[in-house]
Every structure is written in structure tokens, then in C-alpha cells.
């Protein structure tokens, strides 16, 4: 009894310490530069978010996605689903408390001021406090061993890659990721209806969360099919379906009035006129186009189809395993493998999308489930190097690398790098003996190489390409290890 009391006291202390640390890191990151700072005419993501606040605060809902004189869709038109728009409205109200002039219709383009910056930064922190951090606390509570629970909480709450994108570059990924983490918590604790509702909200905040959709769908389908009678299966499926439909309807109420409006919103959310990939991203198409120029030989529509097929092929084994034998353990593995497959083979993937597969990878970093190494944080950070260099965030970038490295000093429980791990399967062996040292050396060499290369050539694409290739190699390895681990677990179930 006394031991339990002591343990819960320790848990409270460590979790409050971790959350407080997370807040400090967010506040300090906020003092750094952001996307597109001082860079007219288009600026960057920071300006895009500010513009959305301007649009949602000043215009009627039916005009938010329409091209009007007051809403020029060419200048950062809203291209996220409705829940993002509602959130922009809320954030806008919050930011206007700090600086009214930052959200004035039409006149506030490119508005950059210390007080509005403070307001914007704090709005992201508020979103994290309301959505992301509670979700992380909930999910980590499902892990039985205290040290592992705290480790996962630390990696999730203080995730270097998410921190630097949300609180440096400037985005609201914490909301979508937080809602998904909340959904995972609900599903893992058998609250399936709540879980699907939360996941639908996540989808309606950021369409990138669709990378998780097949895994969630397949897991819930598998759960339905496990019901004993046909009637049982059907009712469960119907209930889940109803929750999904109702969630979507609630989010889309203002937009389902007319077909034209609906089509316009969908066109904004899924723009097909963009290319196979933008800038540099560590996925298959970008890396392989160093050798074979896809864009030159295949047209847009065919490219999209090719991507769809490749993605499906890559994710099918994992999905099939999950639908036949759904379980808590394999669910997160499935999420990781399918989102990785999507990241590697989808159409129009941004480098920021690495945050999506990174989330299940972060959950799976703790010793008894270990499927990804702490260095995954460093590698994901590295793949975003070109983006962060453009944002003038390199100081924060290196600090985040050190942050990720420091986590391994807290993860040294059973199954540590000191060799006390249970090398019971190929995945573990690959991971510890080969993976981790290779990864650390790899990141270091890549950066040293880039520095040297920059002395000889000003063509940045060269160094960016090397980074992407290295990141791609790691992610493929990770997919391999994850799939092996899922297979082993599936067999064991």
C-alpha cells in the first residue's frame, strides 16, 4: 500500500515536472524566428495562420472558403478542413487581445509586431495545454510500468520535432496530433465510440491525419468482426458508422447547405493541381527522382494513381494483420507502419508530414515495446533541416537535437543501450547492435558532409538531397523493423 502511495506520488511529481518543462521549452522556442519572418510578399506559415484568423474573424462563415474581393484565395486561402477554420476563429479572438491591429481585414497583411507575435505564440501554447498535453497524459497512463510511462510522457510532451515546428516554424499540429492521441487512448481503453469521434475531429482539423485513417478503420473493423453474432457485428459497425457520420456533419454544418459550397471546400482541402512533391522530402518519390525523373515522364493523373497503388501495397500487409487479429499492442504498430507507408509513397507529401509517423514511433520508444529508437527524433529533425534553415531556426534546431539526445539518459531502464536488453527477436537485435550507433554516426556525418559540401558548391539542392536520402534510408529501415515486430506480435496473439 505504502509502495503504491509512493509510486503515485512519484508519478505526480514526474508528470508535473515534465509538463512544466514542456511549457518552458515552448515559451523559450517562441522567442525565435518563424516561417517567413520579414519576407514579403508571401511571408510564410506564420502569416498564413494570421491571415486565417483575419478571414474567420471578419467574414461570414459561408465566405471563408470562397474567392471574394475580401478573401483572395491566392493569398493563403484556407486549405485545411472546417475544424481548423473554427480554431482559427478562436485563436484570432485570443490574439486580438494582444494586438487588435494584427487581424484587421485586408490591412493587416504581413503584420509583424512583438505583441502580436506574443499573442500568436501563446495561442499555440494554449492549444497544446487544452488538447495535446492532456491527451499525452491520458495515453501515457495506460502504460503499467512507471519509468516507461514517464519516458513516453517525456518524449510526447517534449517532442523536439513537434516543438520546433509548432512553436518555431509556427503551426497548430498539436491539435490534430493531440486529438489522435486522445483517440488512441480511447480505443486502447475500449471506448470505441469516443475514440472514433475524437479521430473524426482530428481528421477535420488537418487532412494529413488521414495517414492514420486506414489503421484506425481496420482496427475498429477488426474489433467489430470479433463480436460473436452477426447481429452483434452489425450493430457495432452501425454505431461506429453513426458516430463518424454525426461527427462529420457537426463539423461541416455551415458548409453542407449547397453542393457548390461543399465541392469548393473539398477542392481547397485536396488540391490536385500540385505536384508529386514540393521542395525536399525524405520519401520514395523525391529520393528516387534523383535517379529517375518521374515528373518528366508521367503525367499528373497517372502519377497520383501510381502513388495510390504504391501506398496501398506498402500498407496492405500491416492492415490485413490488424483486421484479422486486432489488439492493443499491434494497433500502435499498425498506426506506425501504415503512416510510414503513406509518408514514403503518397502524393504531395511535405517534410512536415514526418510528424505524423513520428507520433506512433514516439509512443513505441519505451523499452518493453521498443520498436523505434530515440534517435528517430534526431533523424526526423534532420529531414526538416532545409525547412528550418530557411526559417532561420538553426539555433533552435541544434538545441532540439541535444534535447532528443538527452532523452536516452532517462530511458536507461531495462532494455537500455548498456546491453541489458532482451534480444529476443530480430527487430531488437537489428535495433540495438546495428541501428542506434549507426544512426548517431550517420546524423553527424551527414551534417559534417553538408558543411564541407557547402564550401565547394553553392547549389543547396545537393546537401538537401543527401539529407533526404539518409532520412529515407532510415525510414525504410524503420518500416522494416516495425513490420517485423508487428508480424511477431501478430503471430503471438
Amino acid at each position, binding site marked *: 500500500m505504502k509502495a503504491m502511495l509512493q509510486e503515485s*506520488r*512519484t508519478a505526480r*511529481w514526474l508528470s*508535473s*515536472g515534465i509538463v*512544466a*518543462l514542456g*511549457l*518552458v*521549452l515552448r*515559451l*523559450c*522556442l*517562441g*522567442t*525565435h*524566428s518563424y516561417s517567413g519572418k520579414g519576407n514579403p510578399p508571401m511571408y510564410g506559415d506564420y502569416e498564413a495562420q494570421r491571415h486565417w484568423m483575419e478571414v474567420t474573424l471578419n467574414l461570414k462563415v459561408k465566405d471563408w472558403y470562397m474567392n471574394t474581393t475580401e478573401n483572395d484565395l491566392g493569398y493563403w486561402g484556407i486549405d485545411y478542413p472546417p475544424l481548423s477554420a473554427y480554431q482559427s476563429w478562436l485563436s484570432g479572438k485570443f490574439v486580438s487581445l494582444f494586438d487588435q491591429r494584427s487581424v484587421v481585414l485586408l490591412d493587416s497583411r504581413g503584420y509583424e509586431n*512583438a*505583441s502580436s*507575435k*506574443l499573442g500568436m505564440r*501563446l495561442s499555440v501554447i494554449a492549444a497544446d495545454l487544452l488538447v495535446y498535453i492532456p491527451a499525452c497524459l491520458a495515453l501515457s497512463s495506460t502504460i503499467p510500468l512507471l*519509468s516507461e510511462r514517464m519516458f513516453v510522457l517525456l518524449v510526447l510532451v517534449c517532442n523536439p520535432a513537434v516543438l520546433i515546428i509548432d512553436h518555431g516554424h509556427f503551426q497548430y499540429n498539436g491539435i490534430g496530433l493531440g486529438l489522435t492521441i486522445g483517440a488512441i487512448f480511447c480505443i486502447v481503453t475500449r471506448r470505441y465510440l469516443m475514440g472514433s469521434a475524437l479521430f473524426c475531429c482530428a481528421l477535420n482539423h488537418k487532412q494529413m491525419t488521414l495517414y492514420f485513417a486506414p489503421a484506425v478503420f481496420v482496427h475498429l473493423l477488426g474489433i467489430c468482426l470479433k463480436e460473436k453474432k452477426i447481429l452483434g457485428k452489425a450493430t457495432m459497425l452501425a454505431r461506429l458508422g453513426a458516430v463518424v457520420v454525426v461527427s462529420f456533419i457537426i463539423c461541416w454544418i455551415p458548409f453542407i447547405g449547397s453542393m457548390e459550397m461543399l465541392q469548393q471546400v473539398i477542392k481547397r482541402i485536396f488540391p490536385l493541381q500540385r505536384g508529386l512533391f514540393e521542395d525536399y522530402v525524405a520519401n520514395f518519390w523525391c529520393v528516387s527522382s534523383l535517379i529517375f525523373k518521374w515528373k518528366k515522364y508521367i503525367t499528373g493523373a497517372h502519377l497520383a494513381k501510381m502513388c495510390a497503388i504504391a501506398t496501398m501495397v506498402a500498407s496492405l500487409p500491416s492492415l490485413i494483420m490488424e483486421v484479422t487479429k486486432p489488439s492493443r499492442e499491434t494497433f500502435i504498430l499498425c498506426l506506425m507502419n501504415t503512416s510510414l507507408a503513406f509518408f514514403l509513397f503518397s502524393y504531395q507529401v511535405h517534410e512536415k508530414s514526418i510528424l505524423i509517423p513520428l507520433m506512433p514511433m514516439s509512443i513505441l520508444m519505451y523499452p518493453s515495446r521498443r520498436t523505434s529508437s530515440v534517435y528517430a527524433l534526431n533523424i526526423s529533425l534532420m529531414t526538416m533541416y532545409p525547412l528550418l534553415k530557411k526559417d532561420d531556426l538553426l*539555433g*533552435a534546431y*541544434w*538545441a*532540439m537535437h*541535444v*534535447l532528443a*539526445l*538527452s*532523452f*536516452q*539518459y*532517462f530511458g*536507461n*531502464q531495462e532494455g537500455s543501450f*548498456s546491453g541489458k536488453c532482451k534480444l529476443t527477436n530480430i527487430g531488437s537485435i537489428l535495433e540495438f547492435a546495428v541501428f542506434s550507433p549507426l544512426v548517431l554516426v550517420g546524423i553527424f556525418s551527414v551534417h559534417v558532409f553538408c558543411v564541407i559540401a557547402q564550401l565547394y558548391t553553392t547549389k543547396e539542392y545537393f546537401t538537401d538531397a543527401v539529407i533526404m536520402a539518409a532520412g529515407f534510408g532510415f525510414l525504410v529501415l524503420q518500416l522494416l523493423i516495425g513490420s517485423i515486430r508487428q508480424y511477431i506480435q501478430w503471430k503471438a496473439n
Partner: protein
Amino acid sequence: MAENNGLIVGVYLISLVVKVLLIPTYRSTDFEVHRNWLAITHSKPYGEWYSDGASASEWTLDYPPLFAWFEWALSQCGALVDPGMVNVDNLGYESDATVVFQRLTVIISEAVLVFGALFAMHGTSISKKALAVFLVAAHPGLYIVDHIHFQYNGMLLGLLALSIYFATYGNDALATATFTTLLCMKHIYLYVAPAFGAYYLGLLWDLPLGQSVTLFITLAAVALSVLAVSFGPFIGKGMLPQIISRLFPIQRGLVHAYWAPNFWALYAALDKGLSIVLPRIGMERFVSGTKANLTGGLVGMSSFSVLPEVTSSTTFIITVCAMMPALIHIIRRPYPGTLVETVVYCSLCSFLFGYHVHEKAILMTLIPMAIMVAKARHGDRMAGLYMFLTTIGTYSLFPLLTEPQEYLIKVFLLLTYLIIAVPWLMREGVLSRTAGHSRLEKIYLMGIVPIELYCSFGHGMVFKDRWPFIPLMLISVYSAIGIVYAWGVMGMSYIGTGQHREKIKIK
């Protein structure tokens, strides 16, 4: 908790990450002061470093010679990073490279403090070592003063810790060398010189005559050689009088522009209060005609309206009297374990009663106290007092940061420190759940919240721009009450039997 050395590294790395993230925050004029010193030491020959007109800047070199050599060494690297930095004519030069470079020098030199803490914690468990590293490396006061405002206290406090613990572990020559080096880098550490002096006096008294004489000669030789190395070259150039006048400027007032939360702040507040109240009750003859001018003014000019004048000699005498109980105690019983307490107590006396004290000097008490507390073996009144003093001491440093951007940062640096440190101290058995802090202390600390709300928000809403000194005065006076209280608690233990304090004989 993991019981391997990794924990210490992990704690330090995380505190390091926050320091690097603070690079773009507000910098005070101290940043330009140090950049100017980099320029002077790089561009001019050492004979001219202390001359008036060494650079066009208003900030002159007013630290002792070894610090000047430290800046010279830094400037050699700085010149490679950005030559503009070391140009004496580049007043206010603040290129990105300069900022990153100077901030990194503070961060890297702070390693001396971490090393000092680990050295002090020699022989304790890993968890305790990690606790010590956390208490000093993550101290919110250091973050505010060194890594935002900009100073090099981390390194200097590390030297202080090293000198204390060299002495504690019996390495007297090294202790003297380190402490003298410290004095030759920043002479403000004279505040704690009496502690060392009394300790060695007691030691020399205790030892048999032969050993005593040998020890005295060794220590004197060491101290004199360090002094010779630091001041010698400048004496050779005839710069000694100039240096002395820079190190000890006599024209300053009793209190700094922002009143350090010491006894004189209370004295001055009382004076102001009386100067307002007395005329109303018909006793204006006690109020002198001149308006109180406390921050500037020449020596001899009256600066208090009602209460008697306070000269620098007065403050010196009062400070020495305040230190007396502790000094007598350590002379009579020069046990090595008591050196650190005496240093802490003496620094607090100097802070409270000294002349023209800066609020940043509270760190000289807080950091050695942190190490002392981490090392304590059982439930100790000092641990509770440390958390109390650190909270109010850090709060008194808040007015150093005036921008809204740093507001939540400073608040959460303090809160995070408290959230992590207090339960950790309890787990180590250093802070007991019940005897740690009294109800009165808790109420007082809670009182910070309404005070802060008024000073940062309420005052502006009610009075707009009028009477801007009131919030500052309020913070200073409120903090002073707490700090004087802490001093009182510490002092009481010297006047009483002092039974609860450890007497460790380590030789």
C-alpha cells in the same frame, strides 16, 4: 529513477537546451559592456585597458585584471567569429554572430559551476549528484541574470564553490589560489572573504605552532603570487591607482537605481513613509528640506529626509557586526563542513547591509546554499529556508526583465524549478515534509502572487503611467522583508546553541 551516471548528464543537457533556446531573448546593456571589453582587450595593449578613453563607449573596464585577461582570451575567438565585434568603434554592435558567440561563452563558462557542484558532491549517491547539478544548473536566478540579462556569474560562482570545497576537503593551497583568482576576477567576492579569513584564522590557531607557521606561509605565498600575476603587469605600467579607482568608485549612492531588496531598501521606504506621514501629524520639523535622493549624489550630500544619514563606513561597520556571530563561531570551531554555511551567511549579511548593493548579488548566497543543501544528509531546516530564499530571491530579480516576451518565461522557469526541486529534496530526505517550511513562510510566499499581479498589471490599469517607481518599490520592500527574515533565521542559529547544524570533520 535510473541509478546510473546518465541521469546527471540528462539533467545537465536539458538545462543546457533551455539556455541555448534563450539566446534570442532580451539583452541588457551588460551585453554591450562585455562586447566593449572584448574590443578593448583585443585592440589595445594591456597597459591601456584601464585608461579613460580606451574606447569611445561610456562603459569602462571596472573588473579586476584577471577578468580582463579572460575577456582578452575570449576576444581572440571572437575576432575569428566576427571581426566587427572586437572593433572599439562599433558601439552597440549586435550582429547575430556576436550574440550567439557571447551567449555561448556564458553557457560554456558555466561548466565551471557544474564541475564545482560535482566536485562538492564527491562521494554522494548519483541521485544526489544529479540533484546538485539540477539545483545549480537550472537555477532560475542564474537563467535570468546570466542567460537573459547577460553576465558571467555562473563561472565565478563555480570558482567560489570550488574554493569552498577545496578548503572543505583539506586542499588549502588550492582553495586559497582559487579564491584569490576569483577575487582578481570580480572583487565583489570580497563580501565572503571574512568567512575564509575567519576559517583560516581558526585553523591556524588550532594547529600546533610549526604546522601553523608552514600553513600560513604557504597560503600567503599562494595568495601573493596570484595577486602578483594579476596586478603585477599593470603595476609595472603604473596603472594601479587607475585600477583601484575603477574597482571602488566612491561617488555612488547607498542604493542602486532599482533598490536591491536589502535592509537599506526597508530603511529608505521607512524614510519616505515618514516624510509623508510626519507633516500630516504636525511634526514636519523632523523632515529635512531636501528631497530624498538615494541613488546618485556625491558623498556627504544628505539623501534621507527624516532618518539619519548612512555612509559607506557605517554600512561597513554594520555588516561586520552582523557577520560577527558566524565569524566567531568558525574561529572557535573551524570544522571544514561549516565553511560553506559561513560563506552563505556572510554573503547574506553583505547583501543586506552593504553599500550600493546590486540585486543580482543575491545569487552569491543562493548558489552556494544550493550545493550546501544538496549535500545535507538529513531533514534540515536549511533546505526549507533555501527553497524560501530562492523563491523570494528569484522573484526580486524579476524586475530586471521588462519585456512582455520574457514575462511568462521567467515565471515558469521559477515554477518549474520549484515543482521539480521540492519533491526531489523530499525524496532525498533532505527536506522533511513537516519541518520544511512554516505556515508563515508559505503565506508570505503566496503573497507574492497578489503583489506581482498588482505590480505588473494592476498598477498600470489604475494609474496608467504615473508613479512608475511604486511597483518597483513594492517588490523591493516585500522581498526585503523575506530576505531579512531568512537572515534572521540563519543568524539565530549562531546565537543559539547551533546544535542542529552538522559538524563534519573532514581532513
